[in-house]
């Protein structure tokens, strides 16, 4: 066992799948088998539904699943971040209570960090948790929560001490969403979609054992969650589901339903990114591909788009070669929003008068219109361009932070937003 090679692992997985995988199984039943076997999360520790394999060997094992199209454990949404956070900071009680049902897909999770009054300044959260007769009572509001309306549990950042500086007064909880004190409402965007929720807490209750790490450790724990989120984002679809196969079988049918549900909030994301892929085809269709001015703008856009793509490839390549991360890894988010903006402009140039139309009346049955009113989100969601520039300047270029005032004040004395 200690002497495992990639080949031995692959062989073992193939044999195990040979013996156990059956598309006719009920999805939940199959995932319980996976959890018991440890093959669902081979890189997790043995005592927690895993095989204790290295990341590399774990990836090898998972690739054997993909080869034959065997379904894996549930990975979508926030559950993997929740799990990673629990492994870093959670008690065995919490791991025991939650990990398994994450993998089986019985529980869905959401993240409750952002607030109307604290967007870029997450640590400025004012949602409060107060201990009353042995229970935590939560009041406040969170926002930009994805799929809270499907979630059973949430990762909550709340303020438990107002007399210490802002980063020190936060605590990290797991909260049950399905309780009277929690109200989940959709948050509609300017493009008509509602990809996010607002979550309101009125005397919502948390059992004391659902505190993660120690009282006042909230910022530290939230930082690890965010760190895992960035990593996940970095290696792309890691957190996303296994992309619906066309295969037949009860398990596949059930997985397809699950995927549709989890992907629903994301269906406009390609438009948010500007749909560079449509530019040449639309230009030809509209007869604008011969316009020298439009050609210049298309060329600028496609150049930036390709350069950005290749920059990401460079980052991955040097990572794979085990080199220290260069600057090229941190630019994607910012460049992506430049690309989205430029693409929306080019689509406007190309579609001209038709750019005024939407729905069935607009080109590609509304897709073009959706690009034009979705791209503004690219420079905001997941950290504004301005925050990205701060990060690049400070973390990549090592430039000094701005002198911050009142970091040592008790949070109650720090000026904050009264309304959102």
């Amino acid at each position: 066992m200690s002497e495992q090679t990639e080949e031995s692992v692959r062989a073992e997985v193939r044999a195990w799948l040979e013996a156990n995988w059956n598309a006719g199984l009920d999805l939940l039943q199959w995932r319980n088998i996976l959890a018991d076997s440890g093959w669902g999360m081979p890189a997790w520790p043995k005592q927690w539904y895993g095989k204790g394999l290295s990341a590399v060997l774990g990836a090898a094992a998972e690739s054997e699943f993909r080869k034959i199209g065997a379904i894996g454990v549930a990975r979508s949404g926030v559950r993997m971040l929740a799990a990673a956070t629990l492994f870093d900071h959670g008690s065995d009680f919490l791991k025991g209570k939650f990990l398994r049902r994450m993998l089986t897909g019985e529980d869905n999770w959401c993240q409750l960090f952002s607030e109307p009054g604290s967007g870029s300044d997450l640590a400025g959260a004012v949602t409060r948790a107060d201990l009353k007769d042995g229970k935590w009572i939560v009041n406040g509001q969170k926002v930009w929560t994805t799929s809270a309306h499907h979630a059973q549990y949430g990762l909550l950042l709340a303020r438990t001490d107002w007399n210490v500086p802002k980063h020190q007064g936060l605590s990290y909880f797991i909260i049950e969403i399905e309780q009277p004190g929690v109200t989940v409402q959709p948050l509609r965007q300017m493009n008509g979609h509602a990809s996010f929720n607002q979550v309101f807490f009125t005397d919502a209750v948390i059992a004391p054992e659902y505190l993660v790490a120690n009282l006042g450790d909230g910022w530290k724990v939230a930082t690890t969650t965010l760190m895992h989120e960035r990593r996940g984002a970095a290696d792309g679809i890691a957190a996303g589901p296994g992309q619906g196969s066309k295969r037949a079988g009860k398990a596949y049918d059930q997985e397809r339903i699950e995927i549709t549900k989890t992907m629903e909030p994301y269906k406009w994301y390609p438009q948010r990114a500007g749909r560079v892929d449509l530019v040449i085809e639309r230009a030809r269709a509209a007869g604008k591909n011969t316009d020298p001015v439009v050609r210049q703008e298309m060329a600028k856009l496609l150049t930036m788009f390709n350069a950005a793509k290749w920059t990401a490839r460079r980052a991955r390549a040097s990572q794979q070669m085990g080199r220290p991360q260069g600057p090229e890894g941190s630019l994607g988010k910012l460049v992506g929003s430049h690309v989205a903006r430029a693409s929306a402009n080019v689509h406007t140039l190309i579609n001209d008068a038709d750019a005024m139309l939407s729905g069935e009346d607009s080109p590609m049955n509304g897709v073009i219109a959706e690009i034009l009113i979705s791209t503004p989100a690219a420079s905001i969601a997941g950290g504004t361009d301005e925050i990205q520039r701060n990060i690049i300047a400070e973390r990549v270029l090592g430039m000094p932070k701005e002198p911050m005032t009142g970091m040592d004040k008790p949070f109650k004395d720090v000026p904050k937003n009264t309304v959102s």
Partner: protein
Amino acid sequence: MFPANGKIKPETRQGWDSTMKFSFSNEQEQFRTILRRFLAEKSPTTEIRRLMATDAGWERETWQKLNADLGLSAVHIPEAYGGQGFGFVELGIVMEEMGRALLCGPYFSSVVLAANAILNAGTEDQKQALLPGIAAGETVAALAFTEQNGRWDSSGVTLAAEPAGGGYLLNGVKSFVLDGHTADLIVVLGRAPGTADDAGLSFFTVRSDAKGLERRLLKSVDTTRKLAMLTFKSVQAELLGEAGAGAAPFSRTLDQAAVCLANEMVGGADRLRQASLDYVMMRMQFGRPIASFQAIKHKCADMLVEVELAKSAAYYAAEAAAEAAADLPAIASMAKACAADAFMQTARETIQLHGGIGFTWDNDTHLWFKRAKSSEVFLGTPKYHRELLMQRWNV
């Protein structure tokens, strides 16, 4: 008054340029102040959101009340035709304030496009007959000139107009017609079969209930200003003005419309710029108003520059229209391009400065953002007008 072709060398502009006032009179400023207060009260965003959700996009009672109170539809129409007899500078002020308030009403379609087409093309009798109703806000008119090819000049006009009995029969399809589905009177641009471009163009008038006329609301990005597609199947129409002589009045109408749209756009841009400033002054992050962050300050400074430059171009163009200046065509294109870029840029930055909130439906920014997007292409993109500018300056 208008030169046969609007062409003139940029150098020669300087001459009459010096006759420009570059400022509004105290009376004009007063008019603006009253109007701004009036529209702020009549067109709160709750009202905009209510009307934009309807198919019509406006309501006759509110519209007529609006005209009864301030006679807005009459502002630039000559007194001889029931108007107040002011000029394009005053009309520009109305446009700017309507753009600021995002008023939902058929003003641009009826007063700017249709009325000017009638003023430029119609015979004396026709002006007498048609304009008073528009000036009073009782008749709502629309101008149908663009077609599905989306071209903004005469080259796009294919609708066929053939003499029949006393009048004409129209066959064809018009699209992107502002308020075309709700107007009482449609002014239509058609051409004699076999003609092309500027030749053979004529204006016609059609009543909205005319037989063979089908009107369909188009789904649009900016729901505060409705677009319609009008299908003409052997529709009986009356000639407006002189047969085959539509080209000159048409391009004149387009220039005047571009000037009005430019002024409307700077009004919208200025509203957003102010809203952004108000928001960043009150929004706290990291224990201080975000207005104290240099990146935010510089963005707001740049927005001010964009908007003030666009205002200068729009105001200058309004004066050029008022004076029927020789290079109005060039100036109109310059103002349209400049204001459209500034409005779009300001709208983008306003969302950005609001952060996530700015992208939500409940925040009002997107109402103006969508108006900016549709105004950017309506009457021709900035690119289109920059090329026109070069042509009109004989570069």
